[in-house]
C-alpha cells in the first residue's frame, strides 16, 4: 500500500512540476504582460494543486493534510486576486476596447 502511495506521490509531484515548467515557459515566451499573467495564474495553480495532492498521502492526518490544502487554497485566492489587479494596472494606458 505504501509503495502505491509513494508511486502516486512521485507521479503527482512530477505532473505538478511539469505545469510549473509550462507556466515558466509561458512567462518567457508569451508576448506581453497580460498574456504572461495567464501563464502564471493558470498553469501554476494546477501545478501547485498536483504537488499538494501528491504530498497528501505523505502528510500526517489531520493537521498537516488540512495545512497543505489551506496553503493551496490561499495560493489560489492570492493568485486570482493579485492577477486581476496586475491585469488592471497593465491595461491602464491601453485603449479601451
Amino acid at each position: 500500500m505504501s509503495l502505491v502511495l509513494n508511486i502516486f506521490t512521485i507521479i503527482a509531484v512530477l505532473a505538478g512540476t511539469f505545469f510549473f515548467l509550462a507556466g515558466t515557459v509561458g512567462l518567457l515566451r508569451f508576448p506581453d504582460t497580460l498574456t504572461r499573467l495567464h501563464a502564471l495564474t493558470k498553469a501554476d495553480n494546477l501545478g501547485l494543486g498536483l504537488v499538494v495532492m501528491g504530498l497528501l498521502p505523505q502528510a500526517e492526518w489531520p493537521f498537516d493534510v488540512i495545512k497543505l490544502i489551506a496553503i493551496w487554497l490561499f495560493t489560489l485566492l492570492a493568485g486570482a486576486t493579485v492577477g486581476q489587479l496586475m491585469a488592471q494596472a497593465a491595461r491602464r494606458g491601453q485603449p479601451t476596447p
Partner: protein
Amino acid sequence: MRNISARAAMTRWTGFFGFWLLLIGLDPVDLAAGLFAAAAATWTSLHLLPPSGGRLRYAALAQLALRFGQESIMGGMDVARRALSVRLPLRPGFVVYPVRLHPGPTCNAFTTLTSMMPGTLPAGVDDHGALLYHCLDVEQPVAAQLAIDEGLLIRALGETHDDT
C-alpha cells in the same frame, strides 16, 4: 440587522478560531494569541465584507466547486499546451462581458473566480460598467462560459440581479 450581524460575527469568529487551531495546534500557550487573532480577523472581515441576508445554497455551491475544479484543470492544460507549442497559438484580445451582478463583494467574487478559469483574466471595467476580460484566444466562447459561471454563482449565493 443587529441579529444578522451578531450571528455572522459569532460564525466568523468560530471559523477563524477553528482555522487557527488547525494551523497552530492545541498548545494552551498559543490559545490567547489565537483568541485575539480570531477576534481581529472577525472585526476586519465584518468591515470589509458586511453580512448580508442572503443564504448559501449548498447544491449550487457544490456544482460551482465541481465546475471550478474541472475548469482549473482545463485552464492549466490549455496554457501549458499554448506555451509549449512551437507555433505559440495565441489570439489575445479583450472580451466585454456585461455582468448582471451589482458592483460589490459578489461581483468581486465573480471576477476572482473567473480569474482562475481557462483563458480569461479580468482586467477591470469599461466606461459602461461591463467587465473587461483579457483572453488568450478571443475565438473561444468566452462570454458563454462566463454566463454559466455567473448563473451558478448567483444561484449559490442566492443573489438578486438585473435581467435587463
